[in-house]
């Protein structure tokens, strides 16, 4: 774990070094928001951002992914074995909350009798350079979900913004090996390290939301059939997919086939429990017929079922759902309401 520093003027040089070796994904600015994309030049990287609109889960669990393709033959079907890009890549500028989301998704996709090879492969082939948060937003609550603005969990290398330079810290062998290839990075001074620690403390203190989210699981279980509890939230919700699609830990998907006259493919796509069709049977029967059941499902899944099955909270406190919800449904209000329910 050696601390290095990178002067901001040298940032493009650093990126070019990376790009000479690997494809690099970083945040770029688009139409009023940031997203992670494969960059063609260091110039388009923009690290002056709170967080990306679309969470970087997209890089491991893409919006649309071909599972396999097939071709029709005289005998029937030829299953074409899709090869997936084995590109080893560097993803730079991910916030601590989003990196924690990967650890959560790892647990989910790798658990149980069946594992997800597509997700796993992408994770194996990625080197994560995280960007620690000096300036959390008012909607951030990572500290309530087991994270923190300066958490380095899950990162291979961390960057801390020290105004004129970045503190660059390798956190494991993978990180060491990469930094060894960029020997011109200077060693960070004690002052730099102290500066980073100071910023970390400041960032931590700025997070105002404090909710013991892990204690909500039992209460939520008891609230399942309490219509009066869920009604104020389901009243507002318009059951679109904004919160789920833009949530770093939501991972439900749909599987569809597409075909041509000569063959076709099977694709998996992001899906959300908020859509009516999500649970609809072929017979027309729908176990979650109204928005009330569906919004309840999302909250229960993240804050009650996840703790039960994976011993984790299914949320990293990034606050995206609060910001993107067009009707200002604020998940913090839901937490507060659970907390205020009597009996524990």
């Amino acid at each position: 774990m050696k601390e290095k520093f990178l002067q901001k003027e040298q940032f493009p040089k650093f990126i070019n070094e990376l790009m000479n070796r690997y494809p690099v994904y970083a945040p770029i600015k688009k139409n009023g928001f940031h997203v992670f994309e494969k960059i063609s030049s260091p110039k388009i990287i923009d690290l002056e951002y709170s967080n990306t609109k679309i969470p970087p889960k997209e890089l491991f669990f893409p919006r649309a992914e071909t599972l396999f393709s097939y071709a029709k033959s005289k005998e029937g079907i030829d299953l074409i074995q899709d090869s997936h890009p084995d590109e080893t890549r560097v993803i730079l500028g991910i916030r601590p909350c989003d990196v924690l989301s990967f650890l959560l998704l790892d647990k989910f996709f790798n658990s149980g009798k069946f594992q997800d090879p597509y997700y796993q492969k992408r994770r194996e082939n990625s080197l994560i350079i995280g960007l620690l948060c000096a300036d959390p937003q008012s909607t951030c609550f990572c500290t309530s979900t087991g994270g923190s603005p300066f958490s380095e969990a899950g990162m291979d290398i961390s960057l801390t913004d020290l105004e004129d330079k970045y503190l660059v810290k390798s956190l494991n062998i993978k990180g060491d090996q990469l930094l060894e290839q960029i020997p011109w990075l200077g060693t960070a001074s004690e002052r730099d390290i102290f500066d980073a620690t100071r910023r970390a403390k400041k960032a931590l203190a700025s997070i105002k939301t404090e909710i013991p989210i892990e204690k909500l699981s039992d209460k939520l279980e008891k609230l399942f059939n309490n219509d009066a509890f869920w009604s104020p939230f389901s009243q507002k919700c318009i059951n679109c997919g904004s919160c789920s699609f833009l949530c770093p830990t939501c991972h439900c998907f749909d599987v569809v086939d597409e075909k041509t006259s000569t063959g076709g493919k099977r694709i998996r796509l992001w899906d959300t429990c908020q859509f009516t069709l999500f649970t609809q049977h072929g017979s027309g029967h729908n176990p979650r017929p109204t928005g009330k059941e569906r919004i309840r499902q999302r909250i229960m899944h993240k804050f009650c079922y996840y703790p039960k099955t994976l011993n984790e909270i299914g949320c990293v406190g990034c606050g995206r759902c609060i910001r993107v919800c067009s009707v200002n449904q604020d998940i913090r209000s839901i937490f507060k309401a659970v907390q205020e329910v009597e009996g524990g």
Partner: protein
Amino acid sequence: MESLQNSMREIVRNLLTEHKIDLAIGYEKGTLPLRTSPCFVTKEGEIQKLVWNSCCDLDLTKYLFKPENQNKKIGIIVKGCDARALTVCIAEKQIERNKTFIIGMPCLGIIDKKKVEAAVAPKEILEVKVIDDQIIVKGKDFERTLSKKDYLQTSCLACRYNNPPIYDALVGGKPLELPSEIDWDKIIAEFEAKSPEERWAYFSELLKDCIKCYACRNACPLCYCKECFVDQTQPQWVGKTTDISDIMFYHIVRAFHVAGRCTGCGACTRACPMNIDLRLLSKKLEKIIKDRYNLEAGLNPEEPPAMGAHKAEDPQEFITEGH
């Protein structure tokens, strides 16, 4: 603005205490600056939650379609654009006029939070005060004063019906004037001058960030179908992938489904998390309806929607002149 808020609350109080309504749907203060949230009031004690200000952007008509709100007498707070959408729903016999008490709010324009956020980005806005025609925006280490008229919703700048055309009570008693600033005809004319290839390129570029969350459809008060064409499987009309053709198909078909009914309230654009502005498409469709049939949606609850009725004098040059 405050007097309008107080008058609005009084009207709701009277309606509730006289049992003329079971439920009032309005706006409450949001948890973030520049935001309001839908407010559902059934008791007198809750009336204080209702607010009226330049951040009351949502079209609340949508909530009349919620299953839990069926068969209730509902008082709903609507701006001009919302009232027109509601009028369309009444004309289409989806909302019962005699169960709905329409509380009309004359409106001077709603602030576009996305525009304000963009003005100070990447800094976070922590507090906003709107005083007359000024927006005072404060953050951790900054304060800026913006001129409200530069930060209104695009649909407000082209608004011609800022006073609800249909209401049971007009809050404040008198309508308000609002000058139109955006010349949509000019914008559409620019678009109309493009070749089909250029138009396709424009829409491809516009829609490429679409994540198919359907917030636009779910926010739109006219998208009330119990089974949307998107969800049908036999036959499957639209592909579900994120290929641009599937995205385009969804948006184009939805635009056609609301053609002649869309009032330009902007709910779709506001709801979109990816900042996609669908208004040019809907404005063009509005223009076609106006030019061909001299109709504007949502002004008359007795008038069937343009695409849902036929008159003998309707232009039919596509038959007579083989166009």
